[in-house]
């Protein structure tokens, strides 16, 4: 193992911890996002994509923090069960926590694809695809809800409102992030390349 590959052990451990915690507390969407972060980190490590190490660390830390939050302070029992928040409000809390984990993982996916397949993305292609990839990740994440949160579905803790609000907030967050990325990449003439972020020659 080369030195640059060793550096990826830190984000890999963070996302693996998030995955384990997500499985323990049965949080379908974050299990999928944690698995994504782990796979993308492994893809970057395999190609020595050290230029994207910062993004890998940020994405892995974000998914771990969000999973920990939903497992503890923002869980259904902590907020709704204790009476400190209504169910409707809690649905939005969960959706925003998912969205907070989503955006960095989506950005990481571009670095991983670029590093593995030699792709180069500019401001137009990153921002145009960003919200689609983000919405796609939440959609597939909900398939994990189907398998991991059956008890929550049967108990009425997860309802159609949770799914619709989660999808909508995730999509809107990614559209906002797309706009921000477009502005930043265009102003600084940035590209996502196999070497990481670089300025357009």
């Amino acid at each position, binding site marked *: 193992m080369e030195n640059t590959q060793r550096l990826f052990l830190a984000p890999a451990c963070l996302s693996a911890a998030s995955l384990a915690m997500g499985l323990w507390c049965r949080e379908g969407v974050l299990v999928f996002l944690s698995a994504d972060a782990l796979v993308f980190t492994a893809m970057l490590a395999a190609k020595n994509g050290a230029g994207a190490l910062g993004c890998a660390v940020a994405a892995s830390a974000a998914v771990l923090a969000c999973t920990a939050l939903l497992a503890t302070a923002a869980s259904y029992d902590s907020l709704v069960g204790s009476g400190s928040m209504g169910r409707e409000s809690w649905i939005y809390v969960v959706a925003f926590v998912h969205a907070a984990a989503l955006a960095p993982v989506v950005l990481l*996916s571009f670095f991983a*694809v*670029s590093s*593995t*397949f*030699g*792709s*180069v*993305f*500019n401001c*137009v*292609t990153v921002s*145009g*695809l960003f*919200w*689609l*990839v*983000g*919405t*796609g*990740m*939440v*959609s*597939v994440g*909900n*398939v994990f*809800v*189907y398998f991991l949160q059956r008890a929550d*579905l049967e108990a009425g803790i*997860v*309802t*159609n*409102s*949770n*799914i*619709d609000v989660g*999808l*909508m907030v*995730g*999509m809107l967050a990614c559209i906002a992030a797309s706009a921000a990325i477009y502005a930043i990449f265009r102003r600084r003439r940035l*590209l996502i390349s196999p070497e990481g972020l670089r300025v*357009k*020659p």
Partner: protein
Amino acid sequence: MSTEAERRTAWFLLVMGPAVMGVLFILVSEGSVKGLDSGHPVEYLQSTCIAGAIVLSIIPILRLLDLVSLPPWFTALLYGVVYYYVLSLCQGLYLDIAWWGDVAHSITAAIVASAAFAALCVIQARSPPHVTFGRGGIVAMTFLAGGAFGGVWEILEGYTDTLLGTAYMSYGAWDTLGDLRADLIGLIAATAVAWLVLRKRTPEQVASEMRVGRNAVRRG
């Protein structure tokens, strides 16, 4: 297909697509479709026929305006999936046959992801030289971005019912999650096909069949 033949076909589709939906609309209004007995409200089926007619008009209008030219097999797939959806609904198959909705979602997701794949090939072909996806990148992005459309559809279903105060389109969390699961199966299938296609052809060759833009269509 020559440009003139393409235009004739577009005129034919522009008339026939909405006409078939019009016939279905009349049958629904007369109460002659099985979907009403299965439990679909009449206004829901009528709205679906109108929406189907609008959707089926878009492709020929874009062709007649010289903006988009799609290969015949792809147009046939898009038309097929719209007819499949509307006819199944009018016949009540979504409510009467448990697995029908899942199959419909898988097929639709596969076709929509194929459209995303084609769009990625077009973007690749038209991007400046320093911007590239590569074959693997296109396949990966087909999978990553193609999943969005199932999610957007579920958002539309959920919020349509929320805004209208009805329960026409969504039947609870299990149904929504089942739809997303079926979408994932279609997405995986389409991604596999995209991978197979790009083993034999370049993205530019795929893009050459999807002519987009006034100049490109006229040249073709």
